[in-house]
Each structure stands twice: as C-alpha cells, then as structure tokens.
C-alpha cells in the first residue's frame, strides 16, 4: 500500500467513524443518563435525513445551512414528545419493557415515514462550498467528507464541554448518581431527563441531516444505522461519550483494514472488532461493569 492510498484510507475510516460517532454519541448519552436502550434512535436519524431532504427539496437546495439546524431541532421536538408521553413512565420498569416500548416506537416511526415520505429514495445536494474534492498527494478526497469529520469533532467537543463544565452537565451526572438527592435539593429531575433525551434525539437527527448528502435518503436508513451505532457504543462502553468516539474509530479502522486485506470478509471485521474488545474488556473500552455511564467513565 503506498502513502497516497494509506492517507485516503485513513481519512475514509475517519469519515465512517465520524458519522457513526454523531449517532452513537446520542445513543450512549441517553443510556448513560436514563439507562434506556433506545431502539428508536435509528428512527430519529432517518427522520432527520428525510426532513433535510424535504426542506431542501422545496427550497431547491438553497437553504442547506438553516435546514441543517431545523431538521435536528424538529427531531429533538419529536424526542421530547416521546419522552414526555411514553418513556418517563417506564424508567423504573424492566429493561424488557423499555426495549419493547422503544421497539414499538421504531416500528411506528418506520410506518409513519413510509406513509409520509413514501418508498422513493431521495438525494440531497451539498452546498457549493462543500462540493468537489481536494487533492492529497494526487488522490481525490471529497470536501463534504472532511465537513462530516469537522462536525463530529465539534459534537464531541461540545458534549465534553457540556458535561464537564456546565451546571446542566453537573446536574446530569449527579442525576445518574443519585436522582433522589438531586430532587431533594430542588432540581427538577424529570425535566433534566427530558432534556437529555431531547439532546440524544437532536444528535441522532443531526447525524441523519449531516450524512443526507452522502446517501440515498429513504426508508430503511433506521434499520441499517442502529446496528452499527450499537456496535460502536458496545465497543466504547455503554454510556461513555469518549468510548463512543473510540469505538467509532475502531470500527472505521477495522473496516478499512478488512477491505484492504480481506475484502471478501470485510463486513465481518466490525463484528470481529466487537468480539475482540468484549473478550479483552467485557464492559467495552471505557466502560466499567456496574457503573457504565459517562459521569464515571469519562
């Protein structure tokens, strides 16, 4: 493998890792704070992408930047609705009940999306400043892929700042440790949980909106992404934001290596990565058994 190919492969792996991280960050945030494995997370991702396609479809792709903000905000509002109407009633129920509830949401959103948007695939055009490619030692690399990497880095930094350096972040971490004590000192814990779930939905919607110009946008996006997002969170350690970032990078690199060395078996490499990590560290790279949430692990 020459240097040119190596650079492009590494950047490609980072693009894959970046798009996975944006989605997995929301999933792991929700699990860390609320201890809910949200199977509807992929639905939020798909709806984010579909809203992006709808908003840009009607504006002839002129409003990319406002749409990139509006689509995740709309998804966040949907997340708020789900939390208030359904999820806050089942926080203290068995994991099985929670799984069934979020799976029901997944099915409902899947069907609603088919009815609202139909079965057609759609495409989203990136703004002119993000189209085209740059040349790296003679090899092309898409500018939009670099943009995805930048967005993921921005999301990671923003989440770190939020959780480590803001009152809201401290409250979230305290709520995970001891919600009763937090409520006793006057903090509105249910509102806090609603905010966390809304943020998780926002991140998933943002993931969908950001990758929309790279994909066929349509039904099925929810299924395809949720498995990868779960693998990332399991590798990173359920509940760990930094772990999600590491997990995404591991997946991206393993997949790239598999494609280069054993293309026939490449799809199996991400599962191999998961198995290897779980054998060595059963709670994931940055997870700890019994206390796997971001407040402890990051």
């Amino acid at each position, binding site marked *: 493998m020459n240097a040119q190919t190596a650079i492009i*492969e590494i950047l490609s792996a980072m693009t894959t890792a970046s798009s996975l991280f944006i989605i997995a960050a929301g999933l792991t945030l929700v699990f860390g704070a609320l201890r809910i494995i949200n199977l509807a997370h992929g639905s939020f991702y798909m709806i984010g992408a579909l809203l992006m396609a709808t908003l840009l479809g009607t504006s002839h792709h002129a409003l990319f930047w406002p749409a990139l903000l509006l689509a995740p905000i709309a998804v966040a509002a949907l997340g708020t609705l789900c939390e208030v109407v359904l999820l806050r009633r089942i926080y203290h129920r068995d994991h099985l009940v929670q799984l069934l509830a979020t799976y029901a949401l997944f099915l409902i959103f899947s069907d609603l999306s088919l009815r609202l948007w*139909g079965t057609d695939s759609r*495409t989203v055009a990136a703004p002119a400043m993000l189209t085209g490619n740059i040349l790296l030692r003679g*090899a092309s690399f898409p500018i939009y892929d670099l943009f995805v990497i930048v967005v993921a880095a921005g999301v990671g930094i923003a989440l770190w700042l939020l959780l480590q350096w803001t009152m809201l972040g401290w409250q979230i971490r305290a709520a995970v440790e001891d919600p009763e004590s937090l409520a006793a000192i006057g903090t509105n814990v249910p509102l806090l949980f609603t905010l966390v779930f809304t943020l998780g939905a926002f991140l998933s919607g943002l993931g969908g909106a950001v990758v929309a110009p790279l994909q066929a946008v*349509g039904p099925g996006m929810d299924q395809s*992404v949720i498995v990868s997002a779960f693998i990332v969170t399991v590798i990173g350690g359920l509940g760990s934001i930094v772990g999600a970032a590491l997990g995404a990078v591991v997946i991206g690199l393993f997949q*790239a290596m598999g*494609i280069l060395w054993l*293309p026939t078996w*490449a799809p199996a490499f991400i599962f191999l990565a998961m198995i290897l990590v779980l054998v060595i560290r059963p709670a994931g790279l940055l997870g700890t058994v019994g206390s796997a949430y971001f407040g402890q692990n990051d």
Partner: protein
Amino acid sequence: MLSSARKCLGSLRFSTNSARSLTAIAAAFAFALQASPAVAAGDVVIGVSTTLSGPISQLGQTGLHGIQSAVDAINSHGGLLGKTIRVVTADDGMSPATGTTNVRQMILSDHAVAIFGPVSSAVGAAEETLAGQYRTPYFLFTSNDVKMTTSSFTPYAFQVVPNTVMEPRAVARYLADQVGSKPITIATITPNYSFGRDSVDSFLQALKTYGVTFKVVAQEYPKLGETDYTPYIPALVSAHADYTFVGEYGGDLITLTKQAVGFGLFKQSTVIGQYGRLALKTLPNEVPGGTIGFDRAPFWAMTGLGMDAFINDYHTKYGEWPSAWAIMGYTAVQTWAEGVTRAKEFAGDKVVAALSGATVETIRGPITLRSCDHQGDVAEYVGTIAATADPRYGHQIYDTTKAVPADQVMLTCAEAQALQPKH
C-alpha cells in the same frame, strides 16, 4: 461480569401474569392473522409478496404499481374468465421467513391462485419452494437469481426477468464489442449475497467467453443495504481499473454513486452499473456522462404492443414514468393471464401446463417461456449514459440503448437442466 449477567437475566424473567398477558397477545395476533376476508363469488385473488419497506422498497413498490396497472387493465375489460382480479399484498421485509409466511397466508387464507414474487432472490428462493409445494404458479419479475430456474427450479415458477447469467453476460457482450482485443483491468463491487456473487462470477466468465483479455485488480463485497461505501471506494480508486463493474442496485447504487463521485472513481474508471429509471431519476444529472448503464426494461427503449399506452396510463396514474420493475410486474400479470386464458381455468397445474413452452404477447414484445426451465427469453438493455438530462423525462437516459437478445446470453436448455434437481 457473572453477577451483572445474572441481574440482567433476572430482569428478563417473566412473571406468571406477564406470561399470561403475552400468551393472550400472541393468541390475539394469531387470530388476527387468521382472520381474512373471504373471496367474493365474482373475484379471483392473486398475491404479491414483495419488499415494501426498507432500502429496496422502491423496487417493490413500483413493481406493485405495475401489477396493479395490469390488473386494472384486465378488470376494466371484464376481468379474467368473467372474474374480477383482486390483489392482496404483503411486505416481506427482505426476510425469507416473512416472505414464506406471506405466501402461505395468501394461498391458504386468501385463496390466491398465483403469487408474484419479491425483490430479493434470497426471499424468492424460499417462496418458490413453498409455492411449488402448494402447486401454485409463481412469477419472478424482479428477483432474478439463475438458481431459481436451475438448482432450485420447480415447475410452478416462471421467470420473466433477465437472470443473473443473462444480465451480466449482456453487459460483458456490450463491453467486449467496445474494447475489442485491447487488454483491460477490471474492478468489481457487488452486494455480498447470492445475487451479487453470481452476477460478478457470470460477468467475468462471460468476458472470458467473449475473448476479452482482462485482469481483475480489485473485488469488494459490501453488505446489502450498506449506507457507507467510504471505506470501499478508496480501494477501488487505488486499483486504477479501466472498468468498474457495480452490482449494487436501488438505494445502495444511489449511495455508492454519490460517495464515489467525490473520490474521483468515475474520472479514473469507466463505471458499469444498473442505472435504470429509478436511479437516474433519483440522481438527476449526477451520474457522469459516459458511464455504462444496464437495465432490464428501460421504458424509453421499449416498443412492445401496448407499451406506449401503458407508459402514458402509468404516468397519468402515478405521476411518474414507469421503472423496469413496473414494466416487468405488468408483464408478469400478462403472462399469468395468458396462461389462465389458455387453460380456461385458474387451477395451478393447468395454468403451468398452458404456459410451459408458450409464447406470450406482452408490452415488452413476445416472450417465450422455455419448457426446460420456464425462463422467459427477455432482452437485457445496455447503453452509455448521456451527459445531460433528457428534457422529456427530467433525467438522464442512455445515448444509445442496445437490446441484447436473450438467445445470445441465456444458458442453453442442456446447461440449465444439468443444474436442475434430479428427481
């Protein structure tokens, strides 16, 4: 770890009440599944089990539109043998298990007299066996694995789509005409299941048969439904192949195309892909001109009896031009209807006997269903994609569309029969 596992298992344990509730729910589901409308005296039912959700649902949905259009046309002329045709549909979710459940339900509960098959060949293979067991005619018009007319062949199945031998051979033939004796390098990327692997094997084998001197420099097999081709594309680009054969289709092809353009794959290599109506519509002016496209039934190149009327009716009804899947769905119903007309009844055995070896007049022209394997002698269409959109349709079409006749690319009957199960 053990303690957390025990805790987890503990939380998953059902209480007696939960078990009773679940049993009640399961019973209610079972009852709901069994309950189905009875067939009215003047009706005859056909079943369509196809993919109506997920990344390839666009193919299933437009195929269903084609079937419904054909049924509407027949019903508007008094139906078939005096009966009104009613279509029952179900989503297979790309799952063979769901597909077979659908087919069993359609045959046993809805009393479907014919089944029209799915998008995925994996689902088709499972359904074909089941339809054979119930002696119900089964029409494959989108899924096209050659195994369905060879190693898993049942006499009840008919395939009116170019199969995974015919399609890549047609493309290889087109390419052989273009490159002549010049040595070329080839890269391939196809979905990692029977259709993808069969297609690429047949394509490479056909290139050899047609005397093309080539070297394979890269082969990639992403999963069906892949949403991120970013790791695969650099491997293709760095292979510097003269031609890149793409076996992806539906949303996967659209995603791959969007991602590959940015990496310069289309500049470096001539891409060959299944760019039909749906892909070209979804990617308006985004497929670089000069790309080689192939399609099973491009509406702009079809001239069969009644095709123009069908295209216009379809456009009026659905507000868009018909995809190949719609055209082939329409053809499949025409084929079944011809079998019923010849048999003068709906009984599966009689319809199968009437169609085996028959030539049926369809909107794609006459189609002969060989008695040896029930494969229709349908053409595959190959061409070079125009650089700009055709103003009539709002998307690119092929500069010139070449129909590769079936007799140039089909397995011979002897070859097909050698692969069929021996009884």
